[in-house]
């Protein structure tokens, strides 16, 4: 009994020592967390950060990226260096870092699109919108199938909305619709086509073109009913009929059908509340 207990104890201690000493993925994650925490301190108050502190943290992140180049955290560290430079208004240094990332990961379009986006952001921070727009257009044309590439036309429209430039916003939304329609036609019945159609509906809503928005929502609902969850689009359609077109009868009809067809949907409570208000 004593011998069994002693063997078990030794095994536990041995396993614990082994677990604590190896430089495994967990140890790498731990190192990254502490490096990132130092960066977060700078992000919390970038303008009060002394230059030597910034250089020190950049050094920590740089050494981490060099030491573990094969891990995804290495890329995250490299992006953090760029973001630190931008946050502390070291725009040229930040853009150089992003250029390095683009060269290093030139074969990975998703990473490149994110780097170009941050490059564009750096110009936005300097209030140089034309130069930023140039970068964003580059993303739309060169990295159009990446998540960033797909969302970029909407980002541009949102910029004009925030800056209170309605004409430019309308034009950006029209351009976005054409872009998404091209994508949807080129890749029919794909995930990309589904995303494009939902974004088209959003663009029409942004333009307050409610009839076309309903048409776009109908396309999504009818084409993808069996392939993807469309309950959100049906409820959106009812909301447009009720609030924007003041057609309460159609809105009621849609909601009643929705409650009947999708009794297990997460939007059932919302639909019932809307219906109650309409009644």
């Amino acid at each position: 009994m004593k011998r069994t207990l002693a063997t078990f104890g030794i095994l536990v201690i041995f396993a614990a020592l082994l677990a604590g000493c190896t430089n495994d993925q967990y140890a790498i994650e731990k190192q990254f967390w502490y490096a990132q925490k130092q960066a977060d301190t700078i992000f919390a108050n970038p303008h009060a950060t002394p230059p030597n502190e910034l250089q020190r943290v950049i050094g920590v992140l740089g050494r981490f990226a060099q030491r573990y180049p094969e891990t995804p955290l290495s890329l995250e560290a490299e992006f953090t260096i760029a973001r630190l430079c931008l946050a502390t208004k070291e725009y040229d240094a930040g853009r150089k870092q992003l250029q390095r990332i683009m060269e290093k990961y030139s074969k990975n379009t998703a990473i490149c699109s994110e780097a170009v986006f941050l490059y564009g952001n750096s110009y936005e921070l300097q209030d140089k919108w034309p130069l930023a727009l140039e970068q964003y257009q580059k993303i739309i044309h060169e990295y159009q199938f990446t998540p960033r590439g797909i969302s970029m036309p909407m980002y541009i429209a949102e910029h004009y909305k925030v800056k209170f430039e309605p004409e430019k916003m309308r034009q950006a939304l029209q351009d976005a619709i054409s872009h998404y329609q091209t994508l949807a036609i080129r890749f029919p019945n794909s995930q990309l086509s589904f995303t494009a159609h939902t974004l088209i509906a959003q663009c029409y809503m942004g333009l307050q073109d409610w009839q076309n928005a309903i048409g776009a929502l109908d396309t999504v609902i009818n084409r993808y009913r069996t392939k993807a969850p469309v309950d959100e689009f049906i409820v959106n359609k009812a909301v447009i009929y009720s609030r924007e077109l003041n057609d309460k009868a159609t809105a009621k009809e849609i909601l009643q059908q929705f409650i009947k067809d999708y009794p297990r949907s997460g939007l059932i409570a919302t639909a019932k509340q809307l219906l109650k208000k309409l009644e």
Partner: protein
Amino acid sequence: MNPQNQTPTIKNAYTQTFRAIRSTPEFFWPFFIFAILESVFLLILFLAPREPLRLVLGPPIRTFWGERFLHYPANFLLLPKLSSLSRMFLSVFFGSLLTGTAVAMAVDVFTKGKARFDNSLKTALKKYLVLFAIILVVTVLFYLALRFSSTALVKYFIAGHRKLLFIPAALWLGPLAVIINLAVAIVIQALFTYAIPALMAENQRFITCIFRSFVAFKDLFGKTLLLVTLPILAYLPIIVLNYNAAFLIRKAFPEIILIVLLAGVFISALVVDLLITYSTAFLYLLYRNKK
């Protein structure tokens, strides 16, 4: 006047407890052994995301809670839950035996004036199955009560209600849930607290022990609740810190959760469990004598 003939009071129970601990330091042993055992398990769980323990503990963690809890620092968010589960397991399999040993020592001190750890351990070993069954019932009841209260609250608020008794959902599902859990723990522990003293002092069957515990609880209602609640107050800071685990990780460092849990293990074993076990055992023995 012989203290054994007086109406048992909380003061009597605590006087007997502290006198016994002072005269026989072996009274600490069952709880110290349990604290060491729990600490070893906690360290194993802490090292679960790392090789070579990851090979064994990684798959269940991934299956039940998700891959992210095998990574730094998210593993520290899961650690309190894993620690509570391991405590349940240890309580049923080892805690039952050690509590039985502790109560047997209390009975020996009360009846013979002296106690030895090894003799009491032998006595407890002979009654292990009943001890195991009592702690299993308490643990399962406690687990089910917690599940029921949390599920009922979540279902109530998912159904669209925003308030319950004029209190918003955020409070019910946050700090109030912790208080409810604590209250449930106190009531269940108080209800069954005399089952082991009944077993060790009177050598009764399982059902009789449970029945005796209920009767004693009814007769000593207020005293029992106080004897169970007072030591648990010492554990409150640990509950509050565990509840704010995410905040602690963000503001300090992730390893602080391990430090808090280790402190919790020792406070729970050497203060809460020790005081509740001995004080209720002595109160039961005094109550039995009075009867």
